[in-house]
């Protein structure tokens, strides 16, 4: 077999004057880039293996290392950037599908960056969140169109029983990431941070480890096509159930955890033998149409005795609006939409980068459609797919979301540098791996603190922006597209987003 034609993507530069041969880089790099030759007392590096995760750079005590995109390049060509050439070489050498992780990296238009927010001047005062209450509390679940509250002896009394609701103290939750895709320590960090922040995390489709049942009130348990770890006790352990139909990073295909990642604990949690591939079927084989979905929704509602909201997650695909409407009518208490930029532990690259649509467009279309049909109150709308900061969240709520899931951003707070190698199971940051040597790199105490800090920081920023708009409750922003204006979008885009251009 001849030499691979794939070039190194990263250049590893070592300042030999600074290097003290401590071999930290060698121990930290799970891709085995660095090695030490004792005879020569020299560090060597295999650049071909470097994924650019920066783990060695962070841990080098003398700052002797620099990792940067490899300067050696082919002749530039508009239609044939190196990315395209490299993919062809890879496939010519292996005959396989290309795999990758995280969300779309092609850079389809990020609409958040074309939307700007409003603030109060003169005619209404802005509100200072340091001095006035600013409310972010959010409820997820089906709301009736009206409620019967009567005054009895001057006190309001509720005469209508509301369907079950999740209470979130901030409109952000941790998105679905399964035990198996991420490590035990990361699951624990997410669960504890959700509990500390008064919000939810989502188990993903990998079941729920016994140790985490204690965080149940802050857990959304998922029921996906593989039914891994799904049993009555599991369904009742969480605060809500989410039927996963699709995922933004890979609409139309099921999840895949390779057998190498399935150790004893995961095997017990997922209820599959150790070492077997956990392959979720592409569809749910009991859902071939909307009436089947209705049956599953009500089967799950029966299982949780109608005490917990049951929702449905779909990927943002072309006719998401019509599908979402069907889902609401089928009885779902919430609909989760996952956009093109949503992350994944493993997905075919072509699917990840080209199937689905940005969450902004899907969200705008779904919210509008549900309103036109008069059923927007019947279900909450949760969106996911590459939320990077608090203003992305504010814009999503203004477009019509009740709450957002953050996944990749949560992992970044734990150290992830978005190197896109989760599918290898070798995550040098100890996040998307089951190798005990690596998983201990995430300390659940510190992880919990960092995740909690992130939610706190974003919540503070959301309050600041709300106050600037002269609004003191998040429900007054939800679906309030007048607080959004677009910059540099064409009329069709404005139409779909339902926002005016800046200056209008």
């Amino acid at each position, binding site marked *: 077999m001849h030499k691979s034609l794939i070039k190194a993507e990263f250049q590893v530069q070592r300042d030999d004057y600074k290097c003290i041969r401590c071999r930290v880089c060698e121990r930290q790099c799970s891709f085995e880039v660095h090695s030490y030759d004792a005879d020569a007392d020299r560090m060597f590096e295999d650049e071909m293996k470097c994924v650019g995760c920066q783990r060695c750079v962070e841990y080098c005590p003398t700052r002797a290392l620099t990792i940067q995109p490899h300067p050696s390049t082919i002749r530039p060509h508009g239609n044939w950037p190196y990315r395209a050439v490299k993919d062809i070489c890879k496939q010519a050498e292996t005959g396989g599908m290309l795999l990758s992780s995280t969300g779309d990296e092609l850079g389809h238009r990020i609409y958040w960056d074309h939307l700007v927010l409003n603030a*109060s001047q*003169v*005619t*209404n*005062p802005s*509100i200072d969140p340091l001095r*006035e*209450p600013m*409310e972010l*509390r959010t*409820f997820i679940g089906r*709301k*009736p*169109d*009206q*409620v*019967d*509250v*009567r*005054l009895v002896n001057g*006190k*309001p*009394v*509720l005469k*209508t029983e*509301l369907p079950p*609701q999740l209470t979130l103290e901030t409109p952000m939750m941790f998105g679905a990431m399964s035990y198996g895709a991420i490590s035990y320590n990361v699951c624990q960090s997410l669960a504890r941070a959700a509990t500390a922040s008064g919000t939810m995390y989502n188990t993903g489709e990998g079941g729920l480890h016994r140790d985490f049942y204690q965080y149940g009130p802050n857990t959304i348990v998922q029921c996906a096509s593989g039914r891994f770890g799904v049993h009555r006790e599991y369904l009742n352990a969480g605060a809500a159930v989410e039927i996963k139909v699709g995922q933004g990073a890979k609409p139309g295909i099921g999840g895949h955890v390779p057998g190498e990642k399935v150790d004893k604990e995961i095997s017990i949690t997922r209820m599959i033998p150790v070492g077997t591939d956990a392959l979720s079927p592409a569809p749910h084989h009991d859902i071939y149409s909307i009436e089947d979905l209705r049956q599953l929704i009500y089967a799950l509602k029966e299982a949780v005795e109608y005490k917990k909201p049951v929702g449905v997650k779909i990927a943002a695909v072309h006719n998401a609006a019509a599908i979402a409407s069907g889902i609401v009518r089928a009885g779902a208490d919430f609909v989760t939409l996952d956009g093109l930029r949503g992350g994944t532990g493993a997905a075919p690259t072509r699917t990840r980068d080209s199937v689905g649509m940005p969450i902004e467009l899907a969200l705008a279309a779904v919210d509008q459609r549900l*309103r036109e049909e*008069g059923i*927007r*109150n019947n279900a909450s709308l949760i969106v996911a797919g590459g939320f990077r900061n608090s203003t992305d969240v504010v814009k999503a709520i203004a477009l019509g979301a009740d709450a957002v899931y953050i996944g990749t951003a949560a992992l970044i707070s734990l150290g992830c540098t978005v190197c896109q190698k989760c599918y290898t199971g070798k995550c040098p940051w100890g996040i998307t791996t089951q190798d005990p040597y690596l998983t201990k790199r995430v300390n659940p105490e510190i992880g919990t603190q960092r995740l909690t800090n992130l939610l706190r920081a974003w919540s503070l920023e959301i309050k600041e922006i709300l106050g600037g*708009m*002269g*609004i*003191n*409750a998040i*429900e*007054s*922003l*939800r*679906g*309030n*597209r*007048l*607080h959004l204006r677009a910059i540099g979008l064409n009329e069709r885009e404005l139409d779909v987003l339902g926002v*005016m251009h800046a200056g209008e």
Partner: protein
Amino acid sequence: MHYRFEKDMSACGLTGFINRDRKRVDGEAIMSSICNMDERSNGQGGGFAAYGIYPEHKDDYAFHMLYTDIDAKEITEKYLDRHFLIIEDGELPTRKTAGIVDPPVIWRYFLNVDEEVLHMNACDEEDYVVEAVMYINAEIPGAFVMSSGKNMGAFKAVGFPGAVGRFYKLDEYKAWTWIAHGRFPTNTPGWWGGAHPFTLLDWSIVHNGEISSYGINKRYLEMFGYKATLMTDTEVTAYLFDMLLRRHKLSIEVATMAIAAPFWSQIDHLPDGERKALTALRQVYGSGLLNGPFAFILGHKDGMVGINDRIKLRPLVAAEQGNTLYVANEEAAIREIASPDRVWMPTAGEPVIANLKPEKDSIKEKTSCIKV
């Protein structure tokens, strides 16, 4: 048309009073009261609502119409004729007044709904009237329904409120509830229909402030068939009350708990029953929460309500003299026309509610109903 703006932004002055015994007075007092606050308006709109003014037509819907041209009048009258029984119609009396220029055609109709038609359409009479008002405002260019309630009417124009009152000869009407408004718009040219009060059926509302939650309030009401044709937050407030009070049958006290909801920090510390009720109200009516600075007065067939936003970003004073309740932005506007026994400042989100004593004959009707 250039007045089809997206949202009303205005400061303003408002005042109103109600005699709970249904003792009627002419429009002089309300004009003096609102003129005392001319400082708060800029001549871009003034208006009044009065209740009890048409005792001889108290069972008919009194439509006060504004027409920019005769064509609009013709189209509207064809529409009204097709959908209502026109009991009586004629020009709404006005007098030439300095400061009121270029008035549109102003017409008044007393209408009734044919039971037969309701039966055929299987709809509620008031919903039927609401639909007609929505249709005229949205679909007939140049026609605008100024008010559409029974035994009440709205009178509005571009100009200072005092001039508007003279123009409409309010000194010749007698009412038990009067509310008034002087406008100071910051983003819109004066337009007659854009002045306050906004009305629907017998709801009328005058408003001082800006609703920052307007964008979602409007989309929320659209889900229930309301068309916010004027694109103003005050109109949306009127529709919101119509939905909560008339359609959802909430009491005024409870409705105000939804639109100017207490904070979670207050709700969380209440006894179980109250906490549950207020939580449910916020969960279900969150999109109807009015957020942003406001003071408004709501008039309706049984009474009057004054209320502030949840952190009191606009002034509102209440006072009582005998069985008359006064509400205004400024105390001076009340003292101009009364020597109150009691004056107080309602706190943020706390409604001031006055209900009329039941009419004698309406009591009779009720009793006979129970016996049957």
